[in-house]
């Protein structure tokens, strides 16, 4: 770390040897950690470019093979991967958009308004975070069936639109929003919704960015609920389609790894896009929370 004092002490020639060594050690450490983080992806890349049969060696092959196109073809043939990716994308985007909006609105309501039942609602929000999903599956499934929503995307998207974590995250962000700005907006005659949209929301863009990443990530990788709800193969989302590659007496490992690798790409994209917001958003939300 450089401070004005340190620089002056050391002169303007740059860092002295021990400091430089220290920095290289740190770089090395980070590199090591980075490689550890990436090793599984390297393996996925290797597995995705070999035939499944060739993977069963110890040691397994350590270099990529040449079967990428072949595996892509097979993936498309066996599960219609292109279509599946689009399904996942559609579901995740719609869900993320609606859920983020809902969380923002609810968080705002909880943060900036005093009303009867606020405590109850907050309690409900906190409480639902603690329930293991598995125990809700059967009754929720019954509800979907009675609504006639089996094998529909509404069933996959709607029940979990209200997301406790998102609401709490947004609430933290709104708690910091200065009330005076709200007052002046109201005095100027702006309606509540317009105030929210024009004045408040732009200021919590960082939190929103973080929320978008989390929500998208969770929905994209969501497995058990879509598995239960979707019954036709051309409606499958990515995790479910990949699940069919694991058979009783045969596992298509190369296809599985290729599919998983491809499935990570949209998530990566979302993270890269919203990264800046994500970082600032969490700090805003959590720091004051």
């Amino acid at each position: 770390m450089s401070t004005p004092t340190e620089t002056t002490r050391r002169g303007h020639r740059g860092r002295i040897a021990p400091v430089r060594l220290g920095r290289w050690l740190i770089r090395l450490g980070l590199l090591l950690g980075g490689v550890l983080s990436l090793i599984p992806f390297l393996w996925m890349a290797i597995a995705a470019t070999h035939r499944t049969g060739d993977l069963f060696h110890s040691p397994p092959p350590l270099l990529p093979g040449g079967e990428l196109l072949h595996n892509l073809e097979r993936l498309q043939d066996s599960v219609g991967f292109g279509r599946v990716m689009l399904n996942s994308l559609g579901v995740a985007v719609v869900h993320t958009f609606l859920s983020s909006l809902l969380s923002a609105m609810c968080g705002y309501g909880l943060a900036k308004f005093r009303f009867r039942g606020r405590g109850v609602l907050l309690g409900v929000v906190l409480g639902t975070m603690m329930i293991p999903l598995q125990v809700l599956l059967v009754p929720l499934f019954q509800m979907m069936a009675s609504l006639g929503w089996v094998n529909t995307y509404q069933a996959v998207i709607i029940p979990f639109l209200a997301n406790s974590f998102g609401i709490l995250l947004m609430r933290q962000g709104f708690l910091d929003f200065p009330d005076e700005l709200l007052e002046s907006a109201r005095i100027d005659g702006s309606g509540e919704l317009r105030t929210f949209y024009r004045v408040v929301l732009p200021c919590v863009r960082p939190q929103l960015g973080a929320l978008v990443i989390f929500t998208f990530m969770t929905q994209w990788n969501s497995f058990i609920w879509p598995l239960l709800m979707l019954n036709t193969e051309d409606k499958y989302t990515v995790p479910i389609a990949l699940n069919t590659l694991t058979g009783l007496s045969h596992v298509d490992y190369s296809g599985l790894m290729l599919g998983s690798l491809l499935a990570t790409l949209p998530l990566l994209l979302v993270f890269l896009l919203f990264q800046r917001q994500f970082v600032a958003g969490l700090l805003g939300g959590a720091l004051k929370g």
Partner: protein
Amino acid sequence: MTGELSRRTLLAGVGAATLSTAVTGCATGGVTNREAVHLGPGATGPVTGSITVWSWDSAATALTRLARKFQARHPGARIHVVDIGYDNADDKITVGLRADTGLADVVTVDGARLPAFIGNFPHGLHDLTPLVRPYARDFDRAALRTATSEQGRIHALPWDIGPLAVFYRTDLFRRSGVDPASLRTWDDYVRAGIAVKAKTGAKLLVLDPSEDSFFPCLMQQQGQRHFKDGGKVALATPEAVRALELIKAIGDHGLIHWERGWDGLVTANKEGKVATMPTAAWWSGTLTTEMPELKGKFGVVPLPAFRPGGVRTSNQGGSTLCITGQSKNPRLAWAFIRFLLTDKDNQVSMLQREGLFPAYLPALQDPYLDKPQPYYGGQRVWKVFTDLAPHIPPVEYTDDDAKAADITQQALTGTVLRGHDPRRQLRAAARQLAGATGREIVAG
């Protein structure tokens, strides 16, 4: 204000509980109504309409292929086959049965899981007894047993079975001077294993420490699984002890290769880590697909018996087809199932193309099963299984099998990996299972 709040919350809570109780009550009521629906024998007439069938993996491939053939024969019938994946298929089916809605017309159910479904959801799967009765003798006894409820009603038709035999490495045996025909009893087997390890370094077999199936198979070879005599806990019987002592002996000689998961199994075989695989007929499909380079290096012999002249096979796996109580077109469903499973040509085609060994015994007479198989150096491998299949001991399954499997697994690893005494482990296991399920333990 706070008082009002809590009163309101209380009312809401009570309301929710009442509502949920009411709905739950309705659900149960709906199921009882289903008792009245059943298929009469000889349901004739044009077969039309559409049904959905759930399956997985190569089974789904077989169904899709044969569905086309069926539709060609019965214009007006539409069969939709959906691959729901194997790993979580049971979850989907369980939820559908429990919620009493949302299931396909026909579902594929593992033979071993079927009794749990039948026991827990007595009205979830159609009672097919009058329809199956004309064919009962044509199906493998053990498989049909899994499809039969404790009341003697048949709720499914067996599809494929997994008769056990020993797949062995001909090259490793030759190098060690072991004659595969000499493996008549399990003692012979262990002796052979010692010889093979000495000469080639290969162990005898692979076991999965988290999801083993060998121990229950050894029990089935002797006529029982986890329960017998009308649902009594059979974990501490002499048969069970004998089976566990055998595995312990193999382990004590250092002949067990522990490996988790299917890929571990395949890798171990590919690399010649083990000289034998006592496993079911469907393993052949894995060999030919994943290990083509080992062509000519495998042979098959029956399982060694516990006593000279004893039973030389068991069963692992196998699935069945069921018609769900929720089906809107059970007649078409039955027509399709019957077409698939009681037709010799269809069954043989599924063996040939998808590696599914038929539970339908007449199909085993097809000349295809008598052909020399090039992968096994010309041995008539399917004939081995054909001869063994009728001897598979039928065993009792109950709806507590999942619990039993967990407890049995622990007894296995406790004995073989951690060196505890088999008899003591099994007695403790039996007590634990009896306590958890409220069942009695088999006397003696």
